[in-house]
């Protein structure tokens, strides 16, 4: 009986029909999971998770409340945007709004898929007393803006002020040379080392550290025209010589040659390093995990070189791009949402919960800057140097940066015992190879 029922049900015709129907069903289902194809029209907003979850949650709630108020169906994702934006740009299946930092902007702005938002930029600039100059310089291309800068981060020297004070050091050393000598005296290896800098390509925070140190010695990778390689200079040699001296002083834990990008944070958080060079994430960690330690952490600008000049990094960490989806209704809604995020109460509240500095100048009366730890990041935001300095931020420089040239030279001189000239020769070749792709 059962066999007969099965036989009637499973004729070849039935199988054929099922296969065809199944294929249609799969295709239909597929269309609904690929953004922009066949799916019911709704707004997609892609955002990154940051190291300050409270600010993320607040921003997501603001966006979702705005959508409810407008009667708009919206999906806000809070996961790393990088790879999915790459796929989206290539397949032209774009979200309506994507969070964009300076790196993504350099990479994707030439694709033409970021909407010209000069009107909003002018509007928000007027409302907030303008944007900080480094932010303006980063986002302005041929007089137009294709993204809206929201926050600026910087890497500063985060140090154990309690250890300095106990050692009779009243203030953070002004120069690299002094700093290495100071921490050498204060460290207690193998439990506590002077500096928590990575000498490993996986620890890209150190690229900013060594890059700023090199700048303070007058060394740059490219010249002002942004196209001419400038690696092999006496200034670069002086920087590498000082870095080698610091290595020979023994102020680094032996494992720094294998550290990843979180290891420097861990070294400060676990009391294994006196000073690191990093954005504000360890402060957030201390606030959440060891609040009693937070007041003991000092913040200082990056030390100066022999010329007395010091430089701080500048990252356009949070910003928004409205994408060229071709859906005018969604573009209008996206602009409205941007107005919400840049409104006085929302932006100020977000800055209070987040840790970076705002991209706009008109928030210096915010009470958060009474906290000296946060004030340090505001000061750096105003004067930080852009990637590519002394030239412009370019795709070629970004690609060169992904090869971590300063870390590469550092590794060659301290681990492989190459001479400074050999290390510079190698990076000079890498830089020329990469630039040959961009500038024929």
């Amino acid at each position: 009986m059962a066999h007969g029922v099965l036989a009637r049900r499973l004729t070849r015709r039935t199988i054929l029909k099922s296969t065809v129907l199944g294929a249609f069903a799969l295709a239909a289902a597929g269309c609904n999971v690929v953004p922009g194809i066949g799916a019911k029209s709704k707004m997609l907003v892609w955002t990154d998770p940051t190291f300050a979850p409270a600010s993320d949650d607040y921003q997501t709630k603001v966006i979702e409340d705005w959508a409810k108020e407008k009667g708009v169906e919206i999906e806000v994702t809070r996961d790393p945007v990088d790879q999915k934006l790459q796929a989206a740009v290539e397949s032209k299946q774009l979200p309506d709004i994507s969070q964009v930092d300076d790196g993504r902007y350099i990479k994707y702005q030439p694709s033409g898929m970021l909407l010209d938002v000069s009107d909003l930029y002018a509007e928000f600039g007027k409302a907030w007393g303008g944007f900080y100059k480094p932010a303006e310089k980063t986002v302005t291309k041929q007089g137009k803006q294709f993204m809206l800068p929201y926050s600026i981060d910087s890497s500063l020297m985060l140090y154990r002020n309690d250890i300095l004070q106990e050692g009779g050091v009243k203030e953070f050393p002004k120069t690299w040379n002094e700093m290495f000598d100071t921490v050498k005296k204060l460290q207690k290896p193998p439990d506590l080392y002077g500096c928590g800098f990575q000498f490993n390509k996986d620890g890209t925070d150190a690229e900013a550290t060594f890059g700023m140190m090199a700048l303070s010695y007058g060394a740059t990778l490219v010249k002002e025209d942004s196209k001419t390689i400038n690696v092999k200079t006496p200034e670069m040699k002086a920087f590498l010589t000082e870095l080698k001296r610091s290595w020979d002083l023994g102020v680094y834990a032996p494992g720094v040659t294998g550290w990843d990008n979180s290891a420097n944070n861990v070294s400060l958080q676990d009391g294994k390093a006196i000073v690191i060079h990093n954005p504000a994430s360890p402060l957030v960690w201390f606030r959440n995990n060891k609040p009693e330690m937070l007041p003991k952490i000092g913040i200082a600008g990056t030390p100066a070189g022999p010329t007395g000049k010091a430089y701080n990094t500048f990252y356009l960490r949070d910003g928004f791009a409205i994408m060229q989806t071709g859906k005018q209704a969604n573009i209008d809604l996206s602009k409205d949402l941007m107005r919400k995020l840049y409104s006085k109460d929302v932006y100020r509240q977000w800055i209070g919960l987040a840790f970076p500095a705002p991209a706009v100048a008109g928030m210096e009366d915010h009470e958060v800057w009474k906290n000296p730890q946060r004030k340090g990041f505001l000061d750096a935001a105003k004067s930080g140097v852009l990637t590519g300095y002394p030239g412009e931020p370019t795709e070629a420089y970004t690609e060169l940066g992904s090869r971590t040239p300063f870390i590469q030279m550092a590794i060659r001189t301290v681990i492989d015992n190459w001479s400074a000239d050999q290390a510079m020769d190698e990076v000079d070749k890498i830089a020329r190879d990469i630039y040959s792709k961009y500038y024929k």
Partner: protein
Amino acid sequence: MSATPATAGTGARGRLTARHREWLLGYAVIVPAFAFVFGLILYPAVWGIYFAFTDKVIGRPEKFVGLTNFFWVLQWPDFGLMIVNTVVITVLAVGIKAIVGMTMALVLNEDIPFRSAARALMFLPWTVPSFVAGLIWRWLFDDQNGLFNWGLLNLGLIAAPIPWLGRPATAFMAIVVVLVWKGFPFFGISYLAGLQAISTELYEAAQVDGANAMQRFRHITIPGLQHVILITVLLSTIWTANTFDLPFILTGGGPGNATEVFTLLTYQLGIQNGRVGDAATVPIMAMPFFGALIVVLTRYMLSREEA
């Protein structure tokens, strides 16, 4: 409706003969497999080869550049080192996996207590996702809070943490160790299946003839497993040489360039910099090697089927 007899195709529906309907059914059944092979293997492979001859960058139209990308990659400072590292890591890891796998199979083929549980346990590393395995091993090797250093320090065997991933030799070996840990169960299970296909009478006869354990292993086990050994070694060579996730998570190519493998260059060019043309070139250059292995493997398997 009842099933239409295969020979009763008449009328409007009868335009399709029984044989045609069989064909249609056959094609319908292979459609999913074909869609899979075409959509996820053939189509991307053809695009990948095409991109290797272009200057394709994410989000922008490409133009044909001939062999420019190949020359550019060949003169890349670390390229030679990457190839050497890839070959050495592959040879070491596959060799050790085969030895450990064989040991595992021989032990688990014996009548030992808790044999079923031991078999399941030994297979465990194979089931752990590579990403998770990489993160766990990264923590184990960590010089600041890693388990290995914690244990050695507490046992008083070392005075200061060992930077396992911070020294070229130990970082290199760490990658090999994790690759072996992750991959030996595949060998073990394959060899175990092979061992169970070898007649016990052969061993009994050899024992009667006075052959010792080593002689039985050499003259019965190894010949009996030679086909399994060849297939597992070839497959594992392809998988290991293509490994990206474990070196990426464990060392990222460091310290220095000590553990750079060619898949990391592909990632750096394609994912980090969106230079799809250059990135596609690197695996395309490795294709002849892998292609040769696949041809050997396929021919061998087909010849076995025919035999």
